[in-house]
């Protein structure tokens, strides 16, 4: 049946609300600051958002199976400390340290899914418990100290100096550039990592039977089970992937920091959740989806970058962040509400 202009406008806003908000921001900053509108700056924004994005994609997977993984921040922190400590304190070759980090992540994912599928603890609670666990464990590794070249080895009785170091090959993943050329600084490696992860996640969720099944599990577990889908196995997979992505984020962060700083990644949870659910609204997807999440994460990055350039105090930045978030979502959801009503 034909529909008038208002409906079509509403529909438009519903689909493009968030995207509009982003575009508006970019244009706004372009004219209010000098350094914003610049390729390198955009790449820097992406680099600054890359870690959050990867974490948020992890959360997205957990939300796809109608769960909720709040332990992601903990995994990031754990991996940062673990990997750096392995290299600095115990002289483990970086490749091996990386492997250990990923394995640790996978194990956490398994723990989560065990608690959820076997012990039947609600997702939020189970992962919350894990989060506490991880927050403690990551500090236990160094007895609360940070990891840095020449630190005192917390485990040596005579507080000897740790003699290991973090090799450049490892740092490359956080600080290196690809395709550098005379005129062009190159693409930051973290951005590459993020891009690869996003594309893979997207293909997996939208174009493979596994992704389809995951969405089905999230949509109605009971029905999925009676349709012969191995529900628990898929939920396990989702949580392992979630933890693995967080671990990857942790690796990139460690490489970017070149040291293990205490409490790294503690603040990612809220932003990641925001990104994921903003993603719901993008293009009116109404379900967790990869590109929505990515946009949501970059969104936050752009804000931070632009506002800093405008030299606003950090607390004002939070206020603006909140306002923009609400505005963008209001735009999308208010209208859907109307439609649904």
């Amino acid at each position, binding site marked *: 049946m034909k529909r008038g202009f208002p409906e079509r406008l509403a529909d438009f806003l519903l689909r493009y609300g968030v995207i509009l908000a982003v575009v508006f921001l970019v244009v706004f900053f372009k004219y209010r600051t000098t*350094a914003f509108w610049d390729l390198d700056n955009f790449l*820097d924004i992406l680099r600054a958002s890359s870690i959050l994005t990867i974490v948020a994609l992890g959360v997205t997977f957990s939300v796809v199976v109608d769960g909720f993984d709040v332990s992601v921040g903990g995994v990031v922190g754990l991996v940062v400390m673990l990997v750096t400590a392995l290299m600095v304190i115990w002289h483990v070759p970086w490749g091996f340290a990386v492997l250990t980090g990923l394995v640790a992540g996978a194990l956490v994912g398994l723990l989560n899914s065990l608690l959820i599928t076997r012990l039947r603890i609600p997702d939020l609670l189970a992962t919350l418990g894990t989060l506490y666990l991880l927050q403690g464990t990551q500090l236990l590794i*160094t007895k*609360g100290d*940070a990891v840095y070249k020449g630190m005192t080895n917390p485990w040596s009785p005579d507080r000897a100096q740790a003699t290991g170091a973090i090799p450049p090959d490892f740092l490359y993943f956080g600080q290196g550039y690809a395709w550098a050329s005379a005129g062009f600084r190159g693409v930051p490696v973290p951005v590459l990592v993020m891009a690869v992860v996003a594309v893979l996640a997207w293909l997996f969720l939208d174009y493979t039977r596994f992704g389809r099944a995951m969405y089905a599990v999230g949509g109605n577990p009971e029905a999925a089970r009676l349709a012969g889908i191995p529900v628990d196995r898929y939920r396990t997979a989702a949580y392992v992937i979630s933890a693995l992505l967080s671990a990857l984020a942790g690796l990139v962060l460690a490489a970017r*920091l*070149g*040291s293990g*700083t205490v409490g790294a990644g503690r603040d990612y949870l809220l932003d990641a959740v925001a990104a994921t659910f903003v993603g719901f609204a993008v293009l009116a997807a109404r379900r967790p989806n990869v590109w929505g999440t990515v946009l949501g994460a970059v969104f936050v990055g752009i804000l931070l970058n632009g506002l800093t*350039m405008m030299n606003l105090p950090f607390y004002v930045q939070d206020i603006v962040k909140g306002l923009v978030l609400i505005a963008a979502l209001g735009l999308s959801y208010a209208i859907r509400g109307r439609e649904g009503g």
Partner: protein
Amino acid sequence: PEKFKDPKKIRIALVREVGEGSFFERYLAGAQSMADELGVTLLEATARGDMAKMITAMENFTRQRVDAIIVDHGRPDPLMPKIQEALARGIKVVTFDLVVDDDRVPEIEQDDLLIGYMISKKLAIDFAGRANVIYVNVGGFAPLDKRDKMWQVVKWRFPGLKEVAKIGAVTGSTAADTQTRMEAAMKEHPEANAVLAMWDEFAKGAVRAIVQAKKNAQFRVYSVDITNEDIQMMTQPESPWVATVGTDPYSVGRLAVRAAVAKVVGERVPKYLLVEPQLVTRSFLLKNHIQSMDDLVRALPALGESPLVWPDWMKAAVKK
């Protein structure tokens, strides 16, 4: 000098690891006041303790080609590469409480090793070498680590000092959290008679716990850092908070800006700008009826405006 013809054009960026709390508020206020007096532009970014944010801020300012960056706290390993980048682009860098092995980078330091030693020593002296100490500190933060080192030394020097309990956690509300933990620790260790808090946020929590448990008589609290808030609590009637060691963040902030500007205009600035920490005792505060940092600075000039980096043209500029 040349470069100083048009101060407005000089853009100084201040990158801080933390921005919350009276110490850093006062530090920023100092920096701002100096910048205003000199008429230079001060940009500011705060990382809320997140190193990743801090280096992101470094990158942004580097790309914006500010004239100088003041790096406030933070950890060397992550920041070093960024500082190198900045220098490579001809941007001057000054650090506060951050060790960088690079002669081009002046380091302002409120010597945390010295601070740690002074306060530990003060405790040892007051108790004639034997005390049961509840030690409040956590690892993982550069300044706290340095102070801890000296406490270890002093303990080794005075075997009579017993560390009966170690508490402390850095959380969203450190003071409140420390208070809760202190309550427990006091009960479990009735023999304890001294508290050594390596950060004033810790001290506040410990002091509140003691006062609210009405154990003022039993304890003496030693701490680090000095702010208006701390002065208020120290001068309360029979406050157990007897001594603290610190510098005035206000003057440190001013010094940082001066150093940055001096570098920009090509003055040569010494590699190490040490801000002498001062021991401030409760009795001293009471004797001089000190109510605020400003009073304190008046009574204890060593704590006030640092004499460092004051070229004549700068004095002149401030005069105007």
